């Protein structure tokens, strides 16, 4: 049974309060349009242009979207979510733009407001539609461009805006910063797990998240045990521990870049050859695939998800696991941004199998896995609660069909969303973390 802890209940109260005191931009509609226009122009490159020119409006992408499938609301069709970008491309960028202007309605600020709902509240950026499109259109990439344009126009939902600003300006999230990390470190030390904070030099820079500090300190302890057991020379930085990147979610370039820079600078200054990302799908995407592009240079360190780190340590003989005694069968939920968009499919499954677990696949899995429904910060947006729960129900049925003892995942966002869904619907399949399962079964 997924009994909500007090910390989880308090966290949900914090979520409900988000967005009430968010800064707003006092811009005219023309100013908003101009800012969106500038972003769209700079982001519509060859890749996006080919995508925009190839869509045949077949509508198949709707069938890949958990929000459409769960609600049957046609507005949630992925191709429709990027329609403003396509209209913009047709009028302003396409080689046929002079002709297209006769038939394509101009984008205005009201369109941007309407699509802010579709792109932020009704899309987790999971990219399942990318795998379905018969034309090979990378719809989620174009959703990202939409989000960037909307962020530039000041039309990000209040919850994400508040978190993004907090991270950029204060280097905290949900009020969690260096002090809270130190406090968790002392609690874990009392329990016998040391976190070597702020070492001047280290080979591995381990990251964590505010969510782990508030809700899942066991996951931090688990990462620490894995680091120790594998003999790593590692550290966690109180200045640059936060792996989450709200700018990646909200589309705000400055926030995205500052979060990435903070980590890259720390990794360089302590001479780390590896940055290990905790269980967070979007953080992996930000650091593994976006950071070099964001900073405009190849980076002198490798980025590994904690599951990749464990799989490699097992292979290199630095770590060994004993059979898991308290679990028989599990199903693995692929976090979208870690697997479908990040490429980490095999490692988590390998690790579960090393512990002798019977890994059962859901009907859709790996590159076609159904999103938990609230990934990538979506669970923070209160207005999307209804459709999120409907999408969760789809996921829940697929998980139940496996008849596994528990669902294991490698992402805090997924974990939280599954826990929220479970609490609301009385669902009782345990939701557990891969890294905590590993730490519980380390061989002596």
């Amino acid at each position, binding site marked *: 049974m997924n009994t909500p802890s007090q910390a989880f209940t308090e966290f949900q109260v914090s979520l409900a309060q988000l967005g009430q005191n968010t800064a707003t931009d006092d811009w005219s509609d023309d100013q908003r349009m101009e800012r969106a226009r500038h972003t769209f122009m700079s982001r*519509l*490159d*060859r*890749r996006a*242009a*080919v*995508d*925009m*020119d*190839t*869509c*045949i*409006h*077949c*509508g*198949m992408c*709707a*069938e*890949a979207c958990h929000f*459409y499938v769960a609600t*049957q609301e*046609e*507005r949630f*069709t992925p*191709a429709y979510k990027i*329609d403003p970008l396509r209209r913009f491309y047709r009028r302003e*960028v*396409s*080689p*046929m733009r002079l002709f297209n202007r006769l*038939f*394509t309605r101009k984008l205005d600020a009201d369109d941007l407001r309407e699509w802010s709902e579709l792109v932020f509240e009704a899309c987790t950026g999971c990219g399942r539609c*990318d*795998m*379905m*499109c*018969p*034309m*090979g*259109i*990378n719809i989620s990439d174009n959703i990202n461009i939409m989000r960037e344009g909307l962020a530039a126009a000041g039309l990000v939902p209040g919850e994400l805006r508040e978190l993004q600003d907090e991270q950029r300006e204060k280097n905290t999230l949900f009020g969690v910063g260096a002090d809270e990390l130190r406090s968790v470190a002392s609690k874990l030390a009392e329990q016998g797990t040391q976190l070597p904070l702020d070492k001047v030099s280290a080979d591995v820079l381990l990251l964590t998240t505010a969510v782990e500090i508030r809700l899942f300190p066991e996951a931090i302890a688990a990462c620490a045990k894995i680091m120790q057991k594998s003999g790593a020379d590692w550290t966690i930085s109180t200045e640059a521990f936060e792996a989450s990147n709200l700018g990646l979610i909200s589309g705000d370039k400055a926030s995205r870049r500052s979060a990435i820079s903070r980590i890259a600078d720390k990794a360089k200054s302590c001479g780390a050859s590896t940055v290990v990302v905790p269980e967070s799908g979007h953080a992996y995407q930000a650091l593994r*695939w*976006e*950071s*070099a*592009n964001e900073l*405009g*240079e*190849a980076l002198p360190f*490798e980025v590994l998800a904690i599951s990749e780190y464990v799989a490699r340590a097992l292979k290199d003989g630095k770590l060994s696991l004993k059979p898991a005694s308290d679990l028989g069968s599990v199903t693995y939920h692929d976090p979208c941004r870690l697997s*479908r*968009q*990040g*490429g980490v*499919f095999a490692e988590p499954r390998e690790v579960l199998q090393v512990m002798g677990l019977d890994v059962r696949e859901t*009907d*859709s*899995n790996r*590159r*076609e896995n159904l999103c938990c429904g609230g990934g990538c910060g979506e669970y923070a947006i209160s207005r999307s609660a209804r459709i999120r729960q409907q999408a969760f129900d789809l996921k829940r049925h697929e998980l139940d069909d496996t008849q596994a003892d528990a669902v294991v995942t490698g992402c805090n966002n997924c974990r939280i969303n599954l826990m929220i869904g479970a609490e609301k619907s009385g669902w009782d399949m345990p939701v557990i973390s891969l890294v905590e399962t590993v730490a519980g079964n380390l061989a002596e």
Partner: protein
Amino acid sequence: MTLLDFARGPALQWSLIILVAGIVWRVLGAILLSTRKDLSTPRRKSGLKDGMGTIASRSLPASAFEKRIRFQHITGYAWHLALFVTVLFFGPHILFFESILGFGWPNLPNGVVLFAGAIALAILIALLIRRATNPVQKLISNADDYISVIIVMLPLLTGIIAFAHIGARYETLLAIHLLSIEAMFIWFPFGKLMHTAMTFPSRFQAGTSFGRRGIKA
């Protein structure tokens, strides 16, 4: 100059010029835009194999999704197949291609081709009705979606009428058939019939960009 002379002469020439120039202009207009180099370290090298793999795989059934999109998949396959049979294996079409290319190939019996043409036309009508009534397709459709389907229906319709010699002299019917094809040529680069050319670069780039992250797209 008779209508048929016009259809076979200047109309054909100009429509082909618009078709070819338009396709080149539109493809180059998209392909020549700059794109940033991906600076992240690839999980594995990706290239031709991933790109070609995705070109092939997106024509195959889509595993987990298949049951939800079976209608579109089957009609999509049947429509393209019926079109190719009609265009490429009708005796008079082959003679026309032979006059341009200098070589021909065996034709299929007229009855088979007529059946394929009728199937192609019926599928287009079904797809048009679906587009106008299915909530998802209705919402995402623009004028191009309807124009492109109708303009492809016309050559099929006029071709069947010409074959059956209904309503006018054969020369007139043939001229109308040719003109309907030329109208399609002219519309081609302006609308979504361009997917014929754009699908391949689009699938290719999906294959390579996911491939470098270790994902088979």
